[in-house]
C-alpha cells in the first residue's frame, strides 16, 4: 500500500513537471521580428510604403523606419502587440494604430512587411521567414597541448 502510494506520488510529480515543461516551452518561445517599411507587389497590386513608421512595443519605441528601412525587436510567446505611428507623407500628422499579431510558433525570425500589414492583406503577404544571406566564417578549433592549454601561433608551427 505504502509502495503503491509512493509510486503514484512519483508518477504524479513527473507528470506535473512534464506539464510545466510543456507550458514553459510554449509560453517562453522567443521570436525575433524584423519590420520592413518597403513597397511591395501583391496579386498585381502595388502597396506603397509610407514616409515613416515608428514602432512602439510596450510603450517603448523599438524602431523608427523611413522608406526601405528595417527595424527589429524580440518577443517571448506567440502573442505580439505594437503601436504603429504612421506618417504617410513628409509633413503629414502621424496616425497611431494598435496592431495585435499571432506569431507562428515554429518560426524564429519573422519578417513583417508593415505596409502590407496595414493594408489588411493575408498573412502570407506580410509574413516571411528571415534568412541570413551572409555565411559566417568557419571558426577554427583552438589547438591545445596535453594540458588543455591553448597553443600560440609559434608553438603550433613548431608542432
Amino acid at each position: 500500500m505504502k509502495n503503491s502510494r509512493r509510486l503514484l506520488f512519483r508518477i504524479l510529480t513527473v507528470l506535473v513537471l512534464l506539464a510545466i515543461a510543456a507550458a514553459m516551452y510554449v509560453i517562453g518561445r522567443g521570436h525575433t521580428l524584423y519590420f520592413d517599411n518597403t513597397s511591395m507587389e501583391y496579386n498585381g497590386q502595388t502597396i506603397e510604403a509610407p514616409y515613416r513608421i515608428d514602432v512602439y512595443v510596450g510603450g517603448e519605441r523599438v524602431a523608427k523606419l523611413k522608406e526601405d528601412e528595417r527595424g527589429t525587436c524580440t518577443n517571448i510567446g506567440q502573442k505580439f502587440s505594437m503601436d504603429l505611428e504612421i506618417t504617410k507623407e513628409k509633413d503629414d500628422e502621424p496616425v497611431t494604430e494598435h496592431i495585435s499579431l499571432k506569431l507562428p510558433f515554429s518560426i524564429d525570425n519573422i519578417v513583417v512587411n508593415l505596409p502590407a500589414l496595414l493594408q489588411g492583406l493575408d498573412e502570407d503577404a506580410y509574413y516571411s521567414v528571415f534568412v541570413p544571406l551572409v555565411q559566417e566564417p568557419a571558426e577554427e578549433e583552438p589547438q591545445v597541448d596535453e594540458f588543455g592549454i591553448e597553443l600560440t601561433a609559434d608553438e603550433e608551427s613548431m608542432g
Partner: protein
Amino acid sequence: MSANNKQSAAPQKKGGFSLKNLILDNTVPIMFIVICAICIPVSGFSPSYLINEIMTRLGRNSFLILSLLIPIMAGMGLNFGMTLGAMAGEIGLIFVSDWQIWGIPGMILAMIISIPISVALGVLCGKILNQAKGREMVTSYIMSYFINGIYQLVVLYLMGSVIPIIHSSIKLPRGYGIRNTVSLLQMRQKLDELLAVNIKGVRIPVATLIVIALMCLLIVWFRRTKLGQDMRAVGQDMQVAEDAGINVERTRIISIVISTVLAGFGMIIYLQNMGNLSTYSSHSQIGMFCIAALLVGGASVDHASIGNVFLGVILFHTMFIVAPKAGAVITGDSMIGEYFRVFVSYAVITIALVMYETKKRKKKSQAAEQLQADQQAAGADGKGA
C-alpha cells in the same frame, strides 16, 4: 564521586566564552575581515559601487553555495561533485537556447531538463562515494573530472550529430558540437530584473533573493523532516545510525542527489546573471569557488550553516572585487591582484582543511586522555573498595 564531579566541571569551563576559542574557531572569517578592511580603502571604490557588486554576487552565488549544505549535514564533507549538477544545468541551458525558449520560462524549462540528468549523476556519484567512505571530498573532486570528460564528449561530439541541435548560432561551423560560448542574452538577468528595486543607487534583485530565501526555508524545514534527521544521524555516526535502523547508504545517496539537483538550479541562476555560457569551462572552477566561499564564511568540513553561506559570499566576493584594484594601487600591476584572489581561494580551502584535521586529531587525543583518566579513576575506586 568527587573525581567525576571535577571531570564534568572541566568541559563546562571549556564551553564558556573564551576570546581565544572564538578567534581559533573563526580564524578564516577573521582573516578575511582583516584583508577586506585593508583592501577596501586602498581600492578606493565607493560604498554604493561595492554594495551593488556584493548584492549582484549575493544573488548570483548564494543558491549554488546553499546546495553544499545538505551533504555536509549527512557527513559527506564538501561536495566537489556539485560540478556534476552544474554540468546538468548547462546542458539544460544549451537545449533551451537551441529551442529559443527565452526569459524566465527558459530558465524554468532548463531547470526541469537538468533534473533527470542531475539525479542520474547524483545517484552515480553517491554510489561511488559510498564505496569511498571517509574520502568523499577527494573522490567527488576526481569524479567531477571524470564526468567533465563525458560532458565534453556529449557536448563536443554528440550534440549536433546524434542529439539534434538546430541553430547554427550555437553549433560549431563543422556541423556538430557546441561553440565555446553560448549566448544567453535573451535570458540575461531576467530573474534579477523581476521585481528589482533601486534603493539609493543600489539595485536589489528582489525575485532572486526571494528564491534564495525560499531555498533557505526549504533547508530549515528539511532538517526537521524524518529524512533530514536521518541525515544528521548519519553525519554524526554512521555505525550508530545503521544500528538505529537507518539505511545509511541510501540516505547518503539521497543527500548527494539533492545537492546535485540544487547545484544544477544554482548554475542556471548563476548563468542567467552572467548572460553567457562558456560551454567548456563555466563549471570547471565553480565547485572550488563555492567551497572556498563557504569556508570563508566560517564553515568546516563537518559543519555549515545558512549564516556561513551569506557571510562567506559577502567576505569572499568583497575580496574578489577589491583585490585587483588594491593590487594595482599597491604594486602598480593589477595582475598581482588577480593572482592574489585565485591564490587566496585555494589557500582558504587548504587552511580550512588543515585546521579541520588538526581539530579532529586534537579532539581524538582529548577523548583518549579522558578515557585513560576514567579508567584510572575506575581502577582507583576498585582498589579502594
